[in-house]
């Protein structure tokens, strides 16, 4: 009896020990063990910047990069998670909505400013960024609504069929973007001029891009807005009830079809808004639809499907691993190993799947 209990404990303990050791080593490595990279050669302890003790500023900058990237991840993935958690639809066109959002905002901003291909940041005022973003979010929301009403409404519950339909739609959208938006070239939306500067962060002792801090702020704002919506309004209450038990909610006389439509519009708009932010920070280009579908999938698989907290936690973890792996992996010779950073995304995913297949905050339904 005691032997069996001990066995149980060991089985429950083992994953925690493994994860604890891995995370502990990663932290130790980043904080203390790593050394700055020499010009030639190196060993397993040499990284781009060296440890946090050696180079505190680079460490905080990487941390802020991770947080701001997590903000963008959250904007996009929360929409994906909302749609899946509530409607059980895996929207494989979510990455396409992201891309489409970025391109629509680009076109609108070009029209508004009357500029050519590149716009200097100083020439863009706040309004000329906010309006394209709103138009992009609204128009992709409508695209999402059409997709939901025409293709997904009549076959509810057929998850795979719905996933296949959204795949077909993503193939069509990808091709139509090539045909109609800026000849399918990589395109950037320009941030408002006033964000194009560095701000001093006295507590951390570094200067940091204001635009990136705004991404973090936007991520937090979206999170806060979603929280208010889901936990403080009637529609949100219906959605949460629907996540838990759809049939019961419907039996209580709630018009679920209307709520489904609203949730799909909001989810699609979030993808598009994420696309605008992504296009402002870097650029949108064909092929990124797959990348952002991957990002959304990784975030919700880590965090747990259909959970707002899970989407936040998943974004944070993925953002941290992504940003730190890119600069804190050993560099031997000329930039040898940081290119392996994608492996760590997979390791993160594998750890979660192996020890907690339903995701950190997910529940098995």
């Amino acid at each position, binding site marked *: 009896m005691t032997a069996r209990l001990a066995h149980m404990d060991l089985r429950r303990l083992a994953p925690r020990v493994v994860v604890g050791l891995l995370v502990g080593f990663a932290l130790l490595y980043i904080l203390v063990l790593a050394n700055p990279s020499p010009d030639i050669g190196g060993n397993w302890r040499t990284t781009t910047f060296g440890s946090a003790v050696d180079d505190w500023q680079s460490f905080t900058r990487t941390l802020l990069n991770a947080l701001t990237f997590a903000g963008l991840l959250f904007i996009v993935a929360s929409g994906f998670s909302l749609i899946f958690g509530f409607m059980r639809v895996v929207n494989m066109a979510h990455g396409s909505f992201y891309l489409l959002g970025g391109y629509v905002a680009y076109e609108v901003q070009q029209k508004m400013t009357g500029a050519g291909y590149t716009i200097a940041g100083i020439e863009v005022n706040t309004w000329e960024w906010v309006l394209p973003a709103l138009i992009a979010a609204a128009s992709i929301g409508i695209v999402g609504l059409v997709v939901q009403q025409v293709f997904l409404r009549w076959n509810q519950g057929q998850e795979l*069929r719905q996933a296949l339909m959204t*795949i077909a739609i993503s193939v069509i959208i990808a091709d*139509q973007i090539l045909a109609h938006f800026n000849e399918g070239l990589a395109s950037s939306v320009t941030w408002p001029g006033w964000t194009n500067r560095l701000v001093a962060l006295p507590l951390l002792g570094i200067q940091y891009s204001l635009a990136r801090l705004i991404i973090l702020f936007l991520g937090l704002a979206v999170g806060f807005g979603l929280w208010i919506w889901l936990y403080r309004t009637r529609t949100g209450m219906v959605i949460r009830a629907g996540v838990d038990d759809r049939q019961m909610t419907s039996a209580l006389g709630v018009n679920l079809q209307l709520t489904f439509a609203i949730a799909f519009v909001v989810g699609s708009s979030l993808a598009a808004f994420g696309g605008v932010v992504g296009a402002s920070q870097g650029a949108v280009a064909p092929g990124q639809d797959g990348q952002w*579908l991957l990002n959304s*999938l990784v975030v919700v*698989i880590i965090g747990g499907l259909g959970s707002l907290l899970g989407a936040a936690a998943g974004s944070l973890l993925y953002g941290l691993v992504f940003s730190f792996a890119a600069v804190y992996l050993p560099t031997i010779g000329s930039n040898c190993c940081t290119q*392996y950073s994608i*492996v760590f995304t*997979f390791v993160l995913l594998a750890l979660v799947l192996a020890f907690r*297949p339903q995701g950190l905050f997910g529940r098995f339904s």
Partner: protein
Amino acid sequence: MGDPKAATERIIGVGALVIAVVAPLIFNAYWVDVILTQALIFGIAAASMIFLAAYGGMISLAQTMLMGSAGFMIGNMVTKNGAGGETKGLTLGWNPTLALVIALLGTTLLGILLGALAARSTGIYYLMITLTYSVVGFYFVGQVTVVSGFSGIANINSYTPPFIGDIVENRNRLYYIALGVALAVYAAIRFIIRTPFGLSLQGLRDEPLRMSSLGYAVPLHRTLAFGLSAFMAALAGVLLVWWQGQVAPGDIGLQATLDLLIIAVIGGLTRIEGAWVGALAFIVIGNYIRDSWLTDLLDTTHIGGSFQTIIGLTFLVIVIISPDGLMGVWDRLWGLKSGRDGGEGPSVTAVPAGEKV
């Protein structure tokens, strides 16, 4: 035996086999090399996907990645460095037979590992997890320039094992090899599903909870099935690098992954035969639609876009009309004729929510 549908299918099957065997005499070289060989190869890959879907209830989007895994392994192992050699990849210059064995076994092992990680998930979760495998694999071979880089490894088919021989000049030889492998894979799947393993696999497809309480190791069965399908995908992957001569991250990118899924769905996710039907249909459409009146129609109507739009629309229509693809249409036609349900079991794509999650 008295079933007219089964008899008709047997006649069609034998007819298709006879045509396939004498194909180099009937069709021109382009058709044999580009259409038929390619259809056989992608049919094998699609069969590995349909095997999992139809008999294990798992929709795997990792099959192209597993194909690519075998392809990249072979590419790294057989190509040689030095004068007149290749520059990309590890250029190990190993014995091609050894490389072939390592690539097949290595990919199977990778499949078992990845399958074990996903084994506790089902349904749409399985699809999402295997999709992440696929996309991570794409970025891995793209970013890790030591093993490939985005331009890929070329000239792999100059190094084939002696029993394969020269397939660069002698394309019909490659066609017959692909035909042989396709037949072997088809026969193997038909055999596997009749073994105790195959039967319990189908049992846990329908009733995972009941099978689990009967004492069957559900995750283990799923893992082994995934390993088997990885082996089949590896065969297809090796044939594909021999056919293309090269392997690049684009071969396992999202587009390629979706293409294979489209092949499997066009054929029908419920029946193995659908794999080759779907592959042939997809490749013929892909070959002849590029500059046809359909793409012209897109231009004249100002919708714009290329044949990809048409592929997407075709796929969408098929999923709407017949989620079980062409084989589903075939089954239903027989059902109409005999006035009963012609389906051979529950549709994979039309499973109600909540049943298998």
